[in-house]
Every structure is written in C-alpha cells, then in structure tokens.
C-alpha cells in the first residue's frame, strides 16, 4: 500500500467504561494510521470496533474514559480540542454512517430538512442553496426522484433508501474521512450491495478516507484496501486485503475457517478458537510480532 498523505493517526488508544462490577476495558492500546484509503475494522461483537470509531469523533458518553498518546487528524491533535472546535471537525472533516437508518434519522423531520441541516451547519448558506445542494446529493446517492424524497419523513422510506439518505447527509459537507459503522448490517442482502456500491463510488470519487466497521470478513476483504482485525479490544493483525487469505495469524485463520464455502460442503465448520494469551500485550512483543506493524 502506497502511503498517501496521512489523514488520521491513532496511537495507543485506551477506552475504559467504569461499571459497578469493575471497569470494562473496551479498547486496549490500539494504534493505527490511515491515509486516503479504505480500511476495514473487523471483529466479533464487543471487540471494540464501534467504540473506536466513536472515540475518534470524541462522541462517547462522558463517563467513558478515553486516553491515547495521540489521536491526530491532518496533523491536528483531536484530544486537545474543545467541544466547539470538535464541532467544526464533526461532519465537516470526519463523518459517520450508522447501522440502522430506522433509528439514526429523526422521525419528526423530513429527509430534506435533515440533510440540508448537515450542510447549513458548516457552510452558512441560505435555505434555498442548501436545498439545491441536498437535491444534488440525493441524486448522487442514486435516488431517482429527489424532489419527492426531500419531502418524505423517515418512516416513509425503505431501509435501503434510508441508508442512502444517511450517506447523502454525511457526505454533503464533503468530509475527508468517513466512518461507516456496519452500514449494511440492517439491510437486505440485495440492497446491501447497492448501498455498498454507492458508498464505494462516492468515497473513491472524492478521494476520501474510509473506516469501514464490520463483522463480515469477506465483505471487508472485497471492499477495502487494508483490514484491521480486532479481538477483545486489541488489534490482532493489520493486513492488506489482498493478502487476507494468506494470513498466518491464528485468530484471522480461525475467522476465515468459520466461513462456510460452496466447495467442500461436506466438512463440518470449525469453531472459532480464542486464545486469552492474545489479549496479553507482552505476548506480541515477546514474539517480536510481525503482525502489529502499522
């Protein structure tokens, strides 16, 4: 992978959720960097991938303890930013598409109002200019009748349409980094591919960085440039998507082996093996890991 001009650098990110039963260490010492590329963040439920995405936007609930050596975006240290400075980054520079448009759109506002709001927040323009831009953006996500959709309420659109609206809303201020948090998990399989194609096109056209959070290894492998495999709040491996099937890491191998294949259907699928030793930081250092080079 050619390292283009760097967008995001995360070094030793830790996220802890205090709870009465003891602290939950959701993310432990993870580091990665990102250029104008598509990077996949893969892991099981609870591996800390969504939380990582939210921590970059500094949008975790206030009780979450986030610490890191560095979270910098285009050379600016996001950790030192005030709430007001962060608002100029959110949407404008880094945006996020969430899982289910049924919940992530405001039920009492029209689609058009919500998309143009995203535009108006960052560029102080009149409503009619924002409307024009919104209609253009709706067309860009391949909605054929933008004028009509503009006036609809979220409950009046389908899941696939909703997610396209969400993408339009998040891309309208032209951010340089998009975090897509399982953007297709709530959709039908056929619609999934359409939405992915749109996302892929727009991200490539605009030369943006993309963090694609998913639990679907195959999907990520076909869609992204690089893949980060997470387990138990740690990064297990960072690997080029093309090399994924040649991975030697036991966890990645385990994940790959769990996937059913059309050929060889008579075999029993293997169970995922999880080794607690992987969660130990020293394990990787003592092995002189070649997995965590980022």
């Amino acid at each position, binding site marked *: 992978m050619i390292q283009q001009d760097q967008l995001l650098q995360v070094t030793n990110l830790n996220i802890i959720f205090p709870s009465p039963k003891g602290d939950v260490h959701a993310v432990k010492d993870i580091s990665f960097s990102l250029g104008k590329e598509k990077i996949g963040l893969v892991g099981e439920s609870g591996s800390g991938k969504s939380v990582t995405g939210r921590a970059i936007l500094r949008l975790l609930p206030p009780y979450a303890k986030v610490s890191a050596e560095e979270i910098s975006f285009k050379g600016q240290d996001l950790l030192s930013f005030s709430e007001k400075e962060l608002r100029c980054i*959110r949407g404008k520079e880094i945006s996020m598409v*969430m899982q289910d448009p049924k*919940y992530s759109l405001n039920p*009492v506002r029209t689609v058009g109002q919500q998309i143009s*709001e995203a535009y108006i927040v*960052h560029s102080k323009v009149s409503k009619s200019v924002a409307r024009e831009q919104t209609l253009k953006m709706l067309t860009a996500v391949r909605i054929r009748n933008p004028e009509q959709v503009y006036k609809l309420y979220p409950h009046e659109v389908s899941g696939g349409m909703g997610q396209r609206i969400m993408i339009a809303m998040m891309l309208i201020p032209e951010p340089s980094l998009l975090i897509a948090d399982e953007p297709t998990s709530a959709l039908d399989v056929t619609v999934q591919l359409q939405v992915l194609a749109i996302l892929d096109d727009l991200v490539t056209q605009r030369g943006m960085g993309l963090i694609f959070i998913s639990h679907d290894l195959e999907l990520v492998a076909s869609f992204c440039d690089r893949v980060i495999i997470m387990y138990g709040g740690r990064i297990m491996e960072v690997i080029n998507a093309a090399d994924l099937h040649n991975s030697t890491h036991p966890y990645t191998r385990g994940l790959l082996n769990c996937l059913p294949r059309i050929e060889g259907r008579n075999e029993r699928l293997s169970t995922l093996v999880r080794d607690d030793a992987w969660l130990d930081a020293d394990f990787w250092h003592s092995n002189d890991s070649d997995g965590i080079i980022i």
Partner: protein
Amino acid sequence: MTQFLTQKRLKKTALKILKFLLMVAITFLGLLLITFLIGRVVPIDPVLAVVGDKASHEVYERARIAMGLNLPLWQQFLIYLSSVLRGDFGTSVLTAKPVFEDILRVFPATMELAFLATLFGIFVGIPLGVISAVKRGGFLDHVSRVVGLLGYSLPIFWLALLALMIFYAKLDLLPGPGRVDVFYDGIVTPVTGFMLIDSILAGEWEIFWNALYHLIMPATLLGYFSMAYISRMTRSFMIEQLRQEYILTARVKGVAEWKVIWGHAFGNCAIPLITVVALSFGALLEGSVLTETIFAWPGLGLYLTNSLLNADMNAVLGSTIVVGSIFLGINIFSDILYKVFDPRAR
C-alpha cells in the same frame, strides 16, 4: 386515476372523522348516563328540596309528578338527555337561577386561574424538565426532583393556607382572597367574565393591575402543581429521546448542543407533552375546588362546593357535566394536535 385516488382518500378521511365523532358521542352519552344515575342514587329527595319538609302529602305528590319522577327510569333519562342537549340543567335551588346561566357566570373565573396556572406550569416545568434530563444526576436535577416531588405530595389546601399566612397576613406582600380588592368589586360589568380582559375593555387599568395582583398567589400555587407534573414528564421523555441514535447522528453532523437538545430531542418530546399539558389543564379546571374555596375565588370549584354543601343536585350535576365535557373537549383537541405534529400519526 389520480382523481380516483384522491376521491378514495377523501372517503377514507371522511370515514375516519365519522368514526371519531361517533366515539365522542358515545363517551358523552356515557358521561350523561353516569351523572343521571348518580342524581337518582344519592339519598337526597329532589321533591323535598323543592316543596320543603312541611308540605302535605298531596302537594308532594303533585310536585313529584310535575318533575316527572313517577315515570320509568329510562323515560326520565330521555327527558334528562333532551333537556341537557338544549343546555337546560334545571334550576339551582340555591341561586334560583338556571344552572347553565350560573355556570356561564362562574366559569371564566376558573378558566382565568387555570389558564395562568398552566402557563406557569409550561414555562417553568418544561425548561426545568429538559435541564434535569440533560444534566441528569446533577445538582439542578436533584433540586428539581425534590421540588417536583413536593408538588406531587403536598396537599394544596395546606400550602395555600401557608402562603396566605406568610405573604398576605405576615409580610403583606400579596393581596388576600378574592378576585379584586373589595372596593373594586362590581365596578366592571362582566362582558367576557375574565376579569383581566373586562377591565381592559372598560379601560380600568387600576382594576386590571389589582386583578393581576390577586391572581399571583392562587395561579402560582396551582401552577406549582401542574409544573411538578409537567417537569417530571418532560424529564422522562427527554431522557428517553436523548438515548436515541438520531441524537448521535445530529452530533456527528456537528450540530450545536443546544440545537441537538431543543431542536432534535425536544422536537420529539413535544408530541407526547401535548397530552400531558392538556390533561393537567383539564385537571386544574375540576381540581381547583380546594384552591377556590381557600382563596374565595368565585369560580366553578367554589360554586360546586357550595352546591354540594346545600344539596343542590341540579347545580352539582350540571357542573359535573360541564367539567366532563370540557375534559372530553381537551382530549379531542390534543388528539387533533397529535395528528398535526406527529408525521407518523397522520
């Protein structure tokens, strides 16, 4: 084709409205049936109330027949129904005037009080509830919850007496009971029945200020109770909404926090709050009986109490029907508002 569709939709809407009206009619009929039955069940002899206990048996019987009390119950109910629909609730024994007229006279005083109290409840209760929800577990949240809890649990007559003792008797900051000071009484001819409006219409500004001054204590006290209810409901609605994912969406977009709270979250709370405010307004109309008694406020509550104490059944039942109908009306109104504001309910 489109014409056909709009026609179909029109038919559907008409059917919906018809269904709605039918439901209202049935509810109203139920209300009348209950008041009628109560009127027949209570151990007060309406004939005796008219002829007095020294009347002879003959006079008594004649009065009974004249009042239609010898007819079967269902016929009595039909007569009652038709007279109520004509706005005839009978004559009050106490005032010797038609009950309907009496209610028209006293009701504006209650409305004035309930209206101001609800305004207080809305403008204090809603911001308090929103702030409590946003700063959940904070100092202000605890304060507002204690204040709200007191509003829920303190008896209003006690608080009213205490307030009168402190602000009127001891400190002399606020005027005592009544709608205006005694020497202003009866100067303004009632047009609307609302003292504040009538005094402006008459150009009597001194009376306007005096009436407003008199309203402060009872309206604030009543308002305190509706504020307690409204702020509590607002808080729980807001907590629920702030948890939703569209709030995260708004924050991701970079929307300012006050807009996230008041624009996005509160926009979704406003819909259920319509019902809360409407119900608390309705409750004030019937529930200000105690307050009106203590503040000698010549409203529906006081009228109702006096009628009750004097076994004036026509007046009691008439007032009950009026309060019930208003409650019904408020419910209908809030249902309609719901449909206007919630795109999902259309």
